[in-house]
């Protein structure tokens, strides 16, 4: 019971100090949308600083996936692990980062349960700011996860034709798409009763989306009915756009589709999120 002891040692509030703090007269105008969102982003970064363990998922899971696919299936799928990783690495980066977008939903849900959400909702600020803040903080995770995967990939023999610039551009497109895709999870975070159900529903979506894509194998090897889904899957178009950039090329078609999806996700799920947020 160290906490109680500590509490007893703390001084009580002082009446004269209380009177003084209540004299606050500075009434600033409300912060801009950007400033409020960035402040919430700062909060997300502070949370990572205080609970760094939460980055474990972001780093350990992608490493496991790379090792498993490269060495377990690489030989069978592309002749050798070394050859397969050239195809796999951009895609597995996409999968890993898209998978961790769902933590945004978990974070939203946890905040609602804790009550801190109520305070945010009574503040006179731009309404979507808390939501944008979550996602801004998560961008840091996406960049971190991408960096970890790239380093591991390079060690395992991945040699991107686009060089450093190609890789950075690829990651930038991936992070931009993830920002848009995160709105799906803010919606579920507001909709679901517990963080467990947020995780449950996210797996239901993410597994088919990431596996029924062009991340692991060339869609040309699949039956026609499957190809028709795989080719329009946003994860496929994103993986192809990123793969082309990292290889030093540019896939205009895939890029256009990826941005199209990004706009649709933001517009549809962003709007649904804000509707739920205002109704909650």
């Amino acid at each position: 019971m160290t906490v109680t002891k500590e509490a007893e040692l703390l001084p009580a509030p002082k009446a004269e100090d209380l009177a003084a703090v209540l004299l606050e007269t500075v009434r600033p105008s409300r912060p801009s949308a950007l400033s409020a969102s960035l402040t919430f982003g700062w909060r997300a970064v502070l949370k990572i600083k205080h609970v760094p363990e939460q980055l474990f998922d972001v780093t350990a899971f992608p490493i496991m996936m790379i090792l498993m696919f490269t060495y377990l299936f690489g030989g069978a799928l592309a002749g050798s692990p070394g050859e397969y990783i050239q195809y796999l690495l951009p895609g597995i980066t996409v999968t890993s980062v898209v998978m961790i977008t769902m933590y945004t939903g978990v974070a939203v849900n946890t905040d609602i349960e804790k009550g801190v959400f109520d305070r945010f909702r009574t503040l006179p600020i731009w309404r979507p700011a808390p939501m944008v803040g979550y996602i801004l903080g998560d961008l840091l995770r996406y960049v971190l996860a991408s960096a970890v995967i790239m380093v591991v990939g390079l060690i395992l023999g991945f040699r991107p034709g686009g060089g450093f610039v190609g890789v950075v551009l690829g990651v930038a497109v991936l992070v931009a798409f993830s920002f848009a895709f995160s709105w799906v999870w803010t919606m579920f975070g507001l909709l679901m009763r517990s963080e467990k159900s947020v995780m449950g529903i996210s797996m239901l979506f993410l597994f088919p989306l990431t596996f029924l894509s062009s991340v692991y194998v060339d869609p040309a090897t699949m039956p026609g009915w499957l190809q028709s889904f795989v080719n329009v899957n946003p994860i496929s178009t994103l993986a192809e756009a990123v793969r082309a950039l990292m290889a030093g090329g540019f896939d205009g078609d895939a890029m256009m589709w990826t941005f199209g999806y990004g706009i649709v996700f933001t517009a549809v799920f962003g709007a649904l999120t804000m509707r739920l947020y205002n109704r909650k």
Partner: protein
Amino acid sequence: MNAIETSGLVKVFGDTRAVDGVDLTVPAGTVYGLLGPNGAGKTTTVRMLATLLRPDGGEARVFGHDLRSEPDVVRQMVSLTGQYASVDEDLTGTENLILLSRLLGHTRAHSRARAAQLLEAFGLTEAAGKQVKHYSGGMRRRLDIAASILNTPKLLFLDEPTTGLDPRSRNQVWDIVRAVVAHGTTVLLTTQYLDEADQLASRIAVIDRGKVIAEGTKGELKASVGVGAVHLRLRDADQRERARQVLAGALEADVQLDSDPVALTARLTGRATEQAAEALAQLAREGITVDTFSLGQPSLDEVFLALTDKKKEAAA
């Protein structure tokens, strides 16, 4: 100017009418108590007034501004300290206050200074750099209230501010509330503790099952269930029966024999002090020795029980 005016406020969850036509008028600059048991609809009422829930019916105005059409104006004037501490457990006390201060539009430097000043005034300086999850219940509450008065609000909602606190922490929270009100902020306080409402509030609404069943100043509420009560302790237990008869005659009231064999209690109805003096004189004439005598207003406990009983009788 009234801080809050509601008429026929309704909130329905599924088929429960959590708030069922609440009319409130809270004068500015006072502490107004919403008193009621768990599940009475207190929190739901506060959440509607703090713009967290949309009312399903009725009208509500905060300082003259309609809740539904001007929620942003209302948000600029109110602050809420919820039933469960509405601070971020993962952040430190300082970080919590800076975060909220920045969201109110203050500069970084001003926010940092303001956070330090508030933590000092609330006796939290030593815990300022610790994550809130390591705080005790009382410290958390204090931080929560500190967060609510970052921009001294015109109207502060305190939803069961002392539930689960030890008596010392509870007294500290009360002191803070008194300081806030002395500064001119209106406080709407919900509580299930009658002594809390008695200590802090000037007007009280008793709420039960989503409805206001009584409203008034503390004195009015107490008066509505009788003027007060006389408590007597006799020297000799053998004289109690005789004393009971004398009191019943003099006070024209029911006299209860307490579990203590020398104690009696009589509820007064009319002219309390004169009746009581007359009763004492009669007891003396009868040769009954009275050790202690006290004349008190009924406690809010008695008020609440009397009111809920009355309501049940009316329904039956």
